[in-house]
Structures are given as C-alpha cells and as structure tokens.
C-alpha cells in the first residue's frame, strides 16, 4: 500500500510539473462558464450577426436550467474527452520511451500497483477538473437563468462521473495494448463515440451500456429521477471498469515479463 502511494504521488508530481494539473482544470472551467453564457446571450448574438428576420428571433426561447446543464455535459463529453484523451494518450508509452518505466520496474514494484496508480491519478485529475468546471456551469446557470435543485445536480454529476471513469479506463487499457499514442487516442475516442451512438440509437438493446449514463444524468437534472434501468447500467459500468483494469494489468504483466526476459 505504501508502495502504491509513492507511485501515485510520483504521478501527481509529474503532472504538476508538466502543468496538467493547471491547464486541464482551466479548460473545463472555461467550457463550464462558456456554455451557460452563450446560451443566455444566444438571441442577442444571433440578432447582431445572424441577419435573421425579426419574427424568427421571438421563437428562440432561453433554455431551462436543466437543459443548459445537459448541454454543458454534452460539451464535456466532446471537448472534455478529447482533451483528456490527448493529454493521457502517452501515459505508458512516454515512460517507456524515456526509460523511466524500466527504472521503476527493475525495482520490486508490482505491475498492478504501477498501473492502478496511473489509473487512479488520471481519474482523479479528470474528476477534479470536471467537478470544478461543472460547479462554474451550475453557478452561472443559477445566476443567469434559474437554479436547479442541488440534490439533482449532485446526483446527476455522480452518474456522469462514472461514465468519465469508463473513458479513463479505456485509455489505460489501450495504452497497455498499443505502443503508438495515436492508436490509443483514436481507439479510445472511436470506441467512446460508437458506444454513445449505439446507446442513443437503440436504447433498449444497449440499456446496460456505459453510454446510457449521460442520458440518465440529463433526466436526473430535469426530474430528479434517472431513466429506466439506470441501476443496471451503473452496475454494468462498474463491472466493465474493474474487468478492464484487470485485463490491463494482466496484459501489461505478460508483455513486460516477455520483453524483459527475451
């Protein structure tokens, strides 16, 4: 346990040094603020630049609070995930190339501890950035439009965070499988898009999938209740995450022992 904590601290220190702990939260905060503000000013923006006829402008309603929070999550699912995946695509490959990995792994460090420390750090950074950015979005929505009950916001955010952990685990799994950073980024983003697309196209067959979590979060913001079979998809996501971490550790151990003994 002490060993794991040292590895975890090393990851955090590294991210502080290359500014990841600074710029990733800032990006999330920026998009968290921008979404409510642009929704609020949308009619005025269209009026001054769009050249729409007068009658059309009356038809654009200012969206409700829950709707804006859902749009913010949509932004995080696109730009946020893109930024996270690009920031962490080299999580294993970089250390391998620079030789750090070899220096760590010749010591009696368990492969499981090495990988889970990386995973925990990635997830912590992603979740912290999300919470910061989303708090700003909630605050701006509260000031500009209307307040959404705090219980709904927290519940929805927790459900969404689970979906985020799924993506972080995908990055870890693909990083152990492939040495190319581009492959990690493409596969993670591609699979995330495919899962969420399938979930929105066939909600019944995909009711278990992690891609359903964000739509459950949207409905929690509005009504306080998740959609049908929310607990099923939560349970499945937790299961998938733990299985993927297990597979990642297994692959990593085999690959490294093979490459060191040869």
């Amino acid at each position, binding site marked *: 346990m002490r060993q794991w904590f040292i590895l975890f601290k090393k990851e955090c220190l590294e991210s502080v040094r*290359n*500014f*990841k702990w*600074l*710029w990733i939260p*800032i*990006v999330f*905060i*920026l998009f968290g*603020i*921008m979404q409510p*503000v642009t929704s*609020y*000013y949308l009619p*005025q923006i269209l009026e*001054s630049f769009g050249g729409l006829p007068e009658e059309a402008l009356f038809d654009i309603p200012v969206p409700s609070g829950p709707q804006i929070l859902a749009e913010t999550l949509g932004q995080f699912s696109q730009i946020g995930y893109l*930024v996270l995946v*690009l*920031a962490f695509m080299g999580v294993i490959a*970089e250390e391998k*190339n*620079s030789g750090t990995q070899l220096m760590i792994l010749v010591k009696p460090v368990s492969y499981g501890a090495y990988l889970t420390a990386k995973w925990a750090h990635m997830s912590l950074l992603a979740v912290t950035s999300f919470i910061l950015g989303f708090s700003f979005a909630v605050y*701006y929505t509260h000031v*500009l439009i209307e307040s959404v009950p705090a219980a709904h916001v927290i519940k929805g955010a927790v459900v969404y965070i689970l979906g985020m952990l799924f993506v972080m685990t995908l990055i870890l799994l693909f990083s152990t499988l492939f040495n190319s950073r581009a492959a990690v980024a493409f596969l993670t983003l591609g699979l995330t898009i495919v899962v969420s697309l399938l979930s929105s196209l066939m909600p019944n067959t995909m009711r278990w999938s992690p891609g359903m979590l964000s739509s459950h979060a949207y409905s929690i913001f509005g009504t306080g209740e998740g959609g049908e079979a929310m607990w099923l998809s939560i349970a499945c996501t937790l299961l998938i995450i733990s299985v993927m971490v297990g597979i990642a550790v297994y692959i990593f151990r085999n690959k490294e022992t093979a490459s060191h003994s040869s």
Partner: protein
Amino acid sequence: MEEVTEMLSEVNWSLIVPILIIQFVLMVIAFVDCFRHNRTNGPQWVWILVIVFFQVIGPILYFIFGRRND
C-alpha cells in the same frame, strides 16, 4: 459604430470578464512555459505565435503537442 458601442454597453461585463481572465491566465502559463522550456516539438517561435494568437485552442495545442516532456 453606434451600434457596436450600444451592443458593448448592453453586455453584462461581470459575466464576460471571468472568461477573459481565465483565457488570459491559460495563455500566460503556456507562453511562460514555452519561453523558458527550450525544447519544443517544432520551432519555438511558431508555438509562441500559436499561443498568443489562437485563444484557448493555441495554449491547449501547445500543452498537448508542443511540449516535450523528456
């Protein structure tokens, strides 16, 4: 011109200023880092131009692709 000044006075600056400040902070961090860190992927002066002239996207691109970690 009158229209522009009218529009500017209508905007609630207390809402916009935090966004501008955060954009500025991001730019300054990237700029200082790029300036001090002499090893970048590609020419350093190009990255400085990218950071300064492309708001938000420029600094993000620099941190992801421009910074060499070794």
